[in-house]
């Protein structure tokens, strides 16, 4: 029995988007064990927009786990945004993780927003002006916290959730010049430091869907403009189970909370 993960990022919610995802989301209880949201949930990171996210993605009948994105930081209301999401039962991760009991096994999800910085051989260095050092410190601290969170989880299947990309593969389609603003190799290194099965991210609206880390861990860019559907569904851990292939009416969900 596989663990079924639905995921989407960059939904950039505000009043004008409420209701667009809901019909597809109503189908989740039959087709996924969990929904992961890969950041940029709001347009400007206001509490009002977070309440729109809560209305659209709350009360779905499956656990919802999110990380924030850069847009969710725009108005400096992160505590209010997180508060509104948590009120709706959405778990918000930032340098920590959670383990869910699914029918197919224990799913561990570690999440962090992440940051830019660039990729091996073409990245920012901790050198020079204080602004440059602060930039790179943000990158490395974020990646370190993801690594620690991943290593701390006891589970059967481990998933990393970020907003920024851990690899350049899933940025294909974006201008090369802006890669350093889209992700950093340190996130990939953190993902490779643990027995991660899948890494999901958003942020790169013009990127592409599939990639792998240097250690061969699968990476998927689930930004809404990339997947062009309400969410993507991944089945982890059992590709031979034909009952799962149909993805219809397969099993219930053991929820560790009400």
């Amino acid at each position, binding site marked *: 029995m596989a663990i079924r993960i639905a995921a989407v990022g960059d939904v*950039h919610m505000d009043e*004008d988007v409420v209701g667009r995802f809901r019909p*597809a989301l109503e189908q989740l209880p039959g087709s996924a064990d969990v929904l992961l949201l890969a950041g940029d949930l709001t347009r*400007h990171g206001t509490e009002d927009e977070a309440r729109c996210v809560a209305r659209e993605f709350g009360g779905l009948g499956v656990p919802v786990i999110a990380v924030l994105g850069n*847009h969710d930081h725009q108005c400096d209301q992160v505590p209010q945004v997180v508060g509104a999401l948590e009120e709706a039962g959405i778990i918000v991760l930032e340098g920590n993780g959670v383990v869910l009991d699914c029918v197919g096994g224990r799913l561990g999800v570690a999440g962090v927003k992440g940051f830019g910085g660039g990729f091996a051989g073409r990245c920012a260095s901790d050198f020079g002006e204080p602004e440059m050092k602060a930039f790179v410190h943000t990158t490395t601290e974020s990646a370190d916290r993801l690594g620690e969170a991943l290593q701390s989880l006891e589970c059967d299947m481990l998933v990393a959730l970020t907003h920024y990309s851990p690899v350049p593969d899933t940025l294909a389609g974006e201008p090369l010049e802006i890669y350093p603003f889209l992700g950093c190799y340190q996130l990939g290194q953190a993902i490779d430091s643990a027995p991660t099965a899948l890494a999901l991210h958003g942020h790169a*609206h013009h990127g592409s869907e599939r990639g792998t880390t240097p250690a061969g861990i699968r990476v998927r860019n689930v930004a809404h*403009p990339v997947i*062009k559907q309400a969410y993507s569904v991944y089945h982890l*851990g059992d590709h031979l189970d034909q009952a799962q292939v149909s993805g219809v009416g397969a099993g219930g969900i053991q929820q560790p909370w009400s």
Partner: protein
Amino acid sequence: MTTHRDYGTGPPDEYVEAEIHRMLTEDPAVAEQGITVVRRERALVLSGEVESAHRREEILRRVAERFPDVPITTDIGVIRAQAPTEIEQLP
């Protein structure tokens, strides 16, 4: 955001392109990072995808308001939000 100066009547230059590109992100009424601005011979072309028809209209309104003299054409879509018809198996 930097303010724009007089553009004259010639084709839109690189600075206008840069300014519009930044405006699309920094203007709170737009706040889009995923819109591409390409300079063609006769106009600037804005392309990309947004989450609602309202946002597409807002982009056109704001750009026309701030850059009334710049010829602009747009090709902006609204991202589909239907349930997936296929899943991906990851062994």
